[in-house]
């Protein structure tokens, strides 16, 4: 299947995917767990993510021309594969809904306080639908166009921060030992659900896609680590942990001689754009997987009805802001691990076993299981 997706485009999508949601909220969770060592926790989280990407590449290279849900069916057989595929589709769909919720709560808390949350979410979803209907190639190209803007604006925001750093904010290192750092890293990794990208991976040109996946995750992770460092250095670990949106608070505190100030709009721009792509990728994955499960050739008729459900689901999932906080820190990581680690490992193991079994039985028959 030729989609016109390039390795570069895929790398850009990976970067956007990593930055989305995390850049705004990750520093708070990290600082809550690891205080002044939050940046170490972010580094650890990035390492965990890269390890996950290694696992996904191992699976992705075995998928042939199939996306993740189709691959489930191929490996696990008709019924089990269908059930696991449905679980993945549900996960992607839920993830999209949660991000729509994050977006709505952020905008209504910080800037558009009087606008009803549903209206913002609905309008946003209209654009998500539009992007998904135009298809993978269109939104990848859009991401490529916007990436320089995001990088440029991020630099405008982060450079002044480093002139105002208080290095003592990072001391003492390892005060409470290694455990809080592990905890922080664990929560951080749970925010970047790279497994969704396996819905696209098979359609990226073979040559160079592995390094593209790794580099995209790494570069996106750098953005997050820099933001965490900035928040710790300028706002301090105690205040960072007590903010709902620490990166926004960080941006608010940038002031160079009354010349460069009030740059928090930049932060909104970066965040809304990256979360847009993350939602598009997740939602496209969900609708595509759903179409496959029910034997539709094309996911497009499903997009609008599924999108309407997203708004409802997001409002059901997130009744208030504190719920989001405790949900993300307590429930999300273990839940997401099921889809990010357990099921992919299961897929890989079954696929390896089937290959080995096929080789034993009939040398000529090998590889039929994918």
């Amino acid at each position: 299947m030729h989609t016109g997706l390039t390795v570069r485009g895929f790398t850009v999508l990976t970067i956007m995917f990593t930055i989305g949601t995390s850049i705004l909220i990750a520093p708070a969770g990290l600082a809550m767990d690891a205080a002044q060592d939050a940046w170490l926790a972010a580094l650890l989280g990035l390492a965990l993510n890269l390890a996950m990407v290694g696992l996904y590449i191992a699976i992705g290279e075995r998928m042939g021309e199939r996306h993740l849900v189709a691959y489930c069916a191929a490996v696990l057989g008709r019924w089990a594969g269908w059930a696991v595929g449905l679980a993945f589709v549900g996960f992607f769909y839920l993830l999209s809904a949660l991000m729509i919720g994050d977006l709505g709560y952020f905008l209504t808390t910080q800037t558009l306080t009087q606008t009803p949350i549903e209206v913002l979410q609905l309008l946003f979803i209209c654009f998500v639908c539009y992007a998904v209907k135009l298809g993978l190639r269109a939104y990848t190209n859009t991401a490529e166009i916007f990436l320089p803007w995001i990088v440029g604006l991020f630099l405008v925001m982060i450079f002044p921060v480093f002139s105002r750093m208080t290095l003592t904010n990072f001391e003492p290192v390892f005060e409470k030992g290694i455990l809080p750092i592990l905890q922080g890293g664990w929560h951080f990794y749970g925010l970047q659900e790279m497994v969704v990208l396996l819905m696209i991976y098979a359609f990226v040109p073979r040559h160079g896609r592995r390094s593209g996946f790794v580099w995209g995750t790494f570069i996106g992770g750098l953005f997050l680590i820099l933001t965490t460092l900035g928040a710790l250095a300028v706002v301090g670990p105690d205040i960072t942990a007590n903010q709902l949106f620490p990166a926004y608070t960080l941006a608010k505190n940038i002031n160079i001689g009354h010349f460069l100030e009030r740059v928090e709009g930049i932060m909104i721009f970066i965040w809304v754009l990256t979360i847009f792509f993350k939602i598009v990728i997740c939602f496209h994955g969900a609708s595509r997987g759903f179409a496959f499960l029910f034997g539709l050739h094309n996911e497009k008729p499903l997009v609008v009805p599924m999108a309407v459900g997203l708004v409802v689901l997001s409002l059901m999932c997130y009744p208030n802001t504190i719920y989001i906080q405790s949900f993300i820190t307590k429930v999300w990581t273990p839940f997401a691990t099921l889809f990010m680690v357990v099921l992919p490992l299961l897929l890989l193991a079954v696929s390896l076993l089937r290959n080995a079994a096929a080789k034993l039985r009939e040398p000529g028959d090998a590889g039929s299981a994918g």
Partner: protein
Amino acid sequence: MQGWRKVGALGALLLALLLCGCWNRHELSELSLVVGMAIDKAEDGYRIAVQVVNPGQVVAQKGAGVSSTVVLFEEEGKTLPEALGRMTTRTPYPLYFAHLRMVILSEEVARAGIAKPLDYLSRNNEMRNDFYFAVARNSTAAEVLKITSPIESIPANSLYTKLETSDQVWAATGKITLLELTQDLATEGRNPTLTGIRVVGNKSAGDSMSNRQYIDPPVELVYDGMAVFHGDRMVGWLTEMDTKIMNYVRNRVKKTTAIQPCPNPEEGTVTLRVERSHANIDVKLTDGEPVFLIDVRLEQDIADMECAMDLSKLDTLYQVEKVSNERLDALLKSSIAGVQRRFGSDIYGLGKKLHSKFPREWASIDDWNETFRNVRIDVRGTAILRRIGTTLQPIDYRTRE
């Protein structure tokens, strides 16, 4: 046809996107821009005063100056947001806080604890972080906002720029933002300080635009010293010198002026302008007890010379430098010892340093501020003389006896 439909649909969507903001629109002409806020204690809760800009009078035009440039509204409430909500029964438009410049606290509020009133300020999404705090020294907080300012037409703006300027060149004040204040409150081993403000002159004369018609206004607002906090409760006042020393130690001094007597004190004094200052705090453990070393380095120029000294000789310069060193040492020592004894509140951030360097010892200390009272603090002041201005000798050098 299909293509045009798509374009039309997209256009409608884009327009709808703009409408979203309209929900939240604020018309500039229908807002009361709050530039100053005063927080006083009331019998039950707080008495809040806000200084609101009177836009028609700020822009200089013909006929302006009849009514005042700002208006003060006062209201009571159990909490800040309640008082501000009730205030809408007095103000013509909703209050808008993004241009807030100054928050004045009364001494009573400061002594009772500032954490409670501050919560609203840090929770509200309209608040920015570019306004400063001050504590009213000899009046209520509202009275501070009732006094007109010379030259700058909006009193709260005048307070703001006054604080910025004195921070730049004089260093015996502190421009403390909400972020710095909450950081000091949240950091164990460092206590906050807030600049003090004093009404000088006839208080009741300030509340009228006529105060602006004098060359020498009968009443003025002057920054004076800083309030020391123990946690969120104010415990006392720092003098001008103590404030300056604290600002040296916390690396907040940009420029300031220092004086010292001549070798023969009858001749007068030498005035030095401090151009650069850097402080370093170090801590060591001696027999398990923390011992601090505060190292302050100044770079200064001679600004004024009253002594009969031959400035063309290198020795003279070294002599001035030596006196200046000794004086800095003595001032640091006595001021810091005074703060330890009188307030027992670590406004220098020594505890934070101990925490950073020796986390285990820090964990074993229950009440840092009590420990701070008796902790050993060594100081080392080093003042280097760089320049002597544009002239070599005092102007009466040749004619002097």
